[in-house]
């Protein structure tokens, strides 16, 4: 496998047993992602988008083939090693935000740093930086229930970036947001990608998200049918131009 790639999959196949039959969620997927990519997996429901994110995020293992993420072979990792990889290097953003309701915005964002065992002063500084990024520093002491959907998703972004991961996996991050909030958070993520160099991989069928992607990978029935790269990021600057 090539060492300059953040993610590299070779003949990645995921099979789910369905009684007497087998369901191929992914079929011999060969993909690679370099540092700083802003890519999305698009396709209809059941095309394998989430399964791909699951495996790349070390939440699941491939049935066949090889997957290397940040130099680690996913199929060989123990549960503990997989958790360690997620804890240190991978951030997640979910469709439903999944904030911890009893904790404040600050504490929600702080939690990944507590898992990393960082000292209190450093945690405070990094949490405030992350909240500045998502323009929620003034809501640090609010509870999730006091925030709008868009603000909740911005907190989720702050929680994902606070540990400065190499990779953020976002599964339908705008599905629960209106158009304005969707554009807001996409602009924030695009800016994080450009200025901090964090790699974002989305699973989406939201046209608004697709409009921001630098790379669009289309999955149909578990196979990659199209892999397009754009020279510009239209959500930021204009329309896509496939190459």
């Amino acid at each position: 496998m090539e060492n300059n790639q953040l993610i590299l999959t070779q003949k990645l196949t995921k099979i789910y047993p369905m009684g007497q039959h087998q369901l191929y969620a992914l079929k011999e997927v060969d993909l690679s992602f370099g540092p700083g990519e802003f890519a999305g997996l698009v396709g209809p429901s059941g095309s394998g988008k989430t399964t791909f994110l699951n495996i790349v995020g070390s939440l699941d293992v491939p049935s066949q083939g090889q997957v290397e993420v940040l130099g680690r072979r996913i199929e060989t990792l123990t549960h503990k090693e997989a958790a360690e990889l997620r804890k240190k290097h991978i951030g997640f953003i979910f469709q439903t935000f999944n904030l911890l309701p009893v904790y404040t915005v600050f504490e929600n964002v702080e939690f990944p740093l507590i898992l990393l065992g960082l000292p209190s002063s450093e945690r405070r500084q990094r949490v405030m930086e992350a909240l500045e990024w998502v323009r929620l520093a003034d809501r640090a002491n609010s509870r999730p229930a006091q925030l709008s959907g868009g603000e909740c998703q911005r907190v989720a972004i702050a929680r994902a970036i606070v540990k400065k991961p190499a990779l953020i996996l976002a599964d339908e991050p705008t599905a629960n947001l209106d158009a304005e909030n969707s554009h807001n958070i996409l602009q924030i993520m695009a800016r994080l990608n450009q200025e901090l160099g964090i790699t974002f991989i989305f699973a989406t069928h939201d046209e608004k998200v697709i409009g921001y992607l630098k790379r669009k990978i289309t999955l149909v029935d578990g196979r990659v049918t199209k892999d397009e790269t754009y020279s510009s990021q239209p959500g930021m600057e204009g329309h896509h131009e496939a190459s």
Partner: protein
Amino acid sequence: MIKFLLKGILRDRSRSLLPFLTISCGVMLTVVLYSWMKGAEANIAESSARFDYGHLKIMTRAYAEEAELIPNDLALVGVSELMAKVAKDFPQIEWTPRIKFGGLLDLPDEKGETLVQAPISGLAVNLLNPPSPEKDILNLENALVRGRLPQEAGEALLSEELAQRLGIQPGNVATIISQTMSGSLALANLRFVGTIHFGIQALDAQAILIDLADAQRILDMEDACGEILGFFKDRIFRPKVAAAMTKQFNTSFSQDADRFAPIMKNLLDQGGLADLLGMAQNVSSTIIFVFVLAMSIVLWNAGLMGNIRRHGEIGVRLAMGEDKGHLYRSLISESFIIGCLGSAVGTLIGLGLAYYLQVKGINVASLMENSSIFISEVMRARITWFGTVVGFIPGFAATLIGSSLSGLSVYRRQTSGLMKELEA
């Protein structure tokens, strides 16, 4: 991390309040019941020691075999010499001779004819000899209801209940009819100068209390007594020390085949008290076990409910890279904190109630009618050092069992399904 968990617990009442209340209630009940049982044990042991068994008791072997019959014809003789020996051999013990006797009390009318008669249970102790510990042991100052304590020979006390029944007033003279040590009739007039109430049904029904020297004179028991009782000077019974003394004393007379040779018994050797106290301890242990079991089931259930409610949170934490072991330990830590707080609060409330029961007690006289056990009619709890920590046993055990079982669901969670679950 602990601070973070603590914040979550304090803010999320549903995951803290129910377990907290469960543990607090269980611990409180455990502390109160344990203290109550200890109070009952102490009541039986202390009352029996004070009025009948002593911490140690010396009798003749023959007397010991028939002790319930109060066989004064088998009493110890040469008591002065024996008292001197045990005072020298066991200086940490206060020794006091006693004579128990039965008989009739005859109250005459103004013509000297029998007005009323009643059976009595007599106890003779050293009342007039100043170094005697009996006033303290029998707590006579507090037991006195009317009149005064005897101050000279020929004066006696009788129970208030008996005095009421017979119509005896302080200052009245009545005749005791009993049997001497040699089996002949014993008659003596005594002036009853006061009435007493020990709060023990077995004594208060028909007790009279006279000075030892009077009893020795009336019953022809010069330098003799039925029993010599020994008490630790601080009045705290020490079973192991008492057993060692008993063994030492009895060994020193082991070569003497005489059935009138003295024999020592300690408190637990008498009246099946060891079995009774053992049973009380078993009951205490059973109570604690039942509470641990019941609280564990409640906490297990609460934990399962909590895990269902926190399904999303646990999923997010696993997705963020928290190790399952770490997550499991944190769930147990949360329960541990709840267990600590619940146990502490439950213990404080329990000790408060136990203290109230220790000071005020509950009068169970109506349940003790015709009782022959030396047990106070006012049952009190007793706070012991172990009673202050005993609640932590069910508090922690239930917490650990409950959370350990419910937390296992973390290990059954498949990370591969997290994405879908978290978007549900």
